[in-house]
């Protein structure tokens, strides 16, 4: 082997090893977080954890059933509000948004995307909590929806833009009206990507705390009434982790583990949906 060939070989080897190390470092963060959560939280997870509401401070036992149900309701309502608006806006941007209005909507979505989530919480407080003089789960849902909409609009737009223009033309040449082309051919072709975007968006907002501090507030009792303050896992973690009791710390770890697991499940579902849909498209 000549010296230059040897050198090239060596550089290639060093680079490969370097890249592998960096990849592992990136994954390491997730492994450390999950490992830590499991080590500190798993032992506290039992039947009561999922079925009971918190007991008064200082006592042992109780669970976070109120927070689990609350997370489901608040995130669910946020998705009901945010998904239609976000996906609709994304469809508009991709299919019709080439003009000035499209530019404006895209710009606003990008600014909203970069807005700190605590600011969105203050917006929810100003426009819903203050006028109704009531903290409520609904206000929390609206705040989360506001966070979600620009995310969904941009991912939907990107997914819809991936649909080749030849398909649009083929549909139009068959005598499809424009709106039907967008819905029946373009949106259906991009559906896997759009659903994935929605799930990733839901996973994102499921872990949000800041926008809920001024809106849903938190509630130590079990409730399904969206006009009342409501607990979520993230709020529960915030309160318990900063509280003075060991019992609370224990529950906070367990709640964090459950929340992390929830987000992981949603993300994996998103992965799975993408594979189901796009596996077929060459």
């Amino acid at each position, binding site marked *: 082997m000549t010296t230059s060939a040897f050198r090239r070989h060596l550089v290639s080897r060093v680079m490969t090893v370097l890249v592998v190390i960096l990849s592992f470092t990136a994954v390491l963060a997730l492994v450390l977080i999950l490992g830590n959560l499991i080590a500190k939280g798993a032992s506290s997870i039992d039947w009561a954890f999922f079925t009971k509401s918190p007991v008064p401070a200082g006592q042992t036992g109780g669970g976070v059933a109120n927070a689990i149900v609350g997370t489901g309701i608040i995130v669910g309502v946020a998705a009901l509000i945010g998904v239609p608006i976000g996906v609709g806006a994304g469809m508009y941007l991709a299919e019709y948004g080439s003009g000035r209005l499209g530019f404006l909507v895209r710009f606003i979505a990008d600014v909203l995307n970069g807005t700190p989530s605590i600011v969105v919480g203050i917006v929810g407080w100003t426009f819903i909590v203050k006028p109704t003089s009531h903290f409520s789960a609904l206000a929390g849902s609206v705040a989360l929806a506001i966070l979600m909409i620009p995310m969904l609009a941009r991912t939907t737009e990107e997914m819809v833009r991936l649909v080749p223009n030849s398909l649009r033309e*083929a549909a139009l040449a068959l005598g499809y009206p424009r709106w039907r082309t967008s819905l029946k051919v373009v949106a259906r*072709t991009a559906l896997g990507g759009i659903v994935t975007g929605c799930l990733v968006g839901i996973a994102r907002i499921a872990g949000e705390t800041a926008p809920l501090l001024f809106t849903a507030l938190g509630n130590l009792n079990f409730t399904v009434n969206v006009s009342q303050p409501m607990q979520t896992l993230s709020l529960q973690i915030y309160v318990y982790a900063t509280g003075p009791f060991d019992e609370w710390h224990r529950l906070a770890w367990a709640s964090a583990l459950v929340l992390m697991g929830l987000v992981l499940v949603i993300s994996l579902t998103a992965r799975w949906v993408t594979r189901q849909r796009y596996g077929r498209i060459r």
Partner: protein
Amino acid sequence: MVASANTRLRLETAHLTALFGQHRAVRNVSLLFPANTVTAIIGPSGCGKSTLLRCLNRMHELTPGASVDGAVLLDDVNIYAEDVNPVELRRRIGMVFQRPTPFPTMSIYDNVATGLKVNGRKPRRELDDAVSQALQQAALWEEVKDRLHTSALDLSGGQQQRLCIARAVAPQPEILLLDEPTASLDPAGTQRIEELCHALKRLYTIVIVTHNMQQAARVSDYTAFMYLGSLIEVGRTDEIFTKPKVEQTEAYITGRFG
């Protein structure tokens, strides 16, 4: 163009100019497409032949900045008149593109049926008959009749292109526009499509754009030669290829330019 007296006129362009912004891609073209014939449009890349074709079913105007001047007459009615709905017009004029474009989310059956459904709901049996008829016309029926409800993407490229032809003919259009339909096919697939042209002209008026001169000679009754957006010469295919009247046509078909 000389058309025999009993040939019903179907389609005609009159001083048609197609623009992209200020650029004139098609310049003042007047051309007849007699009924139940195959007319080939040939010419070097960028000569405006595809643009001309896309003017015939008003697909051209969908490109941002595109516009049209002059007229396209379908049975003496200008399709660019105010009261003509382009969406309904396109249901009367089928189109097949350069690359196969099956709808990826639809089965073979649904790909063919979708052009019928867009015209309003139809009874299942009527759809079944129309789908099998269209697939037979496109010479694809025997290959797919046992898997009508599988994905259209599982078909080969040539089969996909014949599926697109079936999709285009299922709503029984009056005119069939083919935009280099064999550009992405192998010789066997090309031959099948060319045979189809012969078979289908009994039912439809066909306009085919091609940059393959042998193909034009094989499939068409009339050939129009375009260069730089203008119509240079048009006539019976055998005459164009054996004794062209214009110097440029001869240069092109003998391969001296283009």
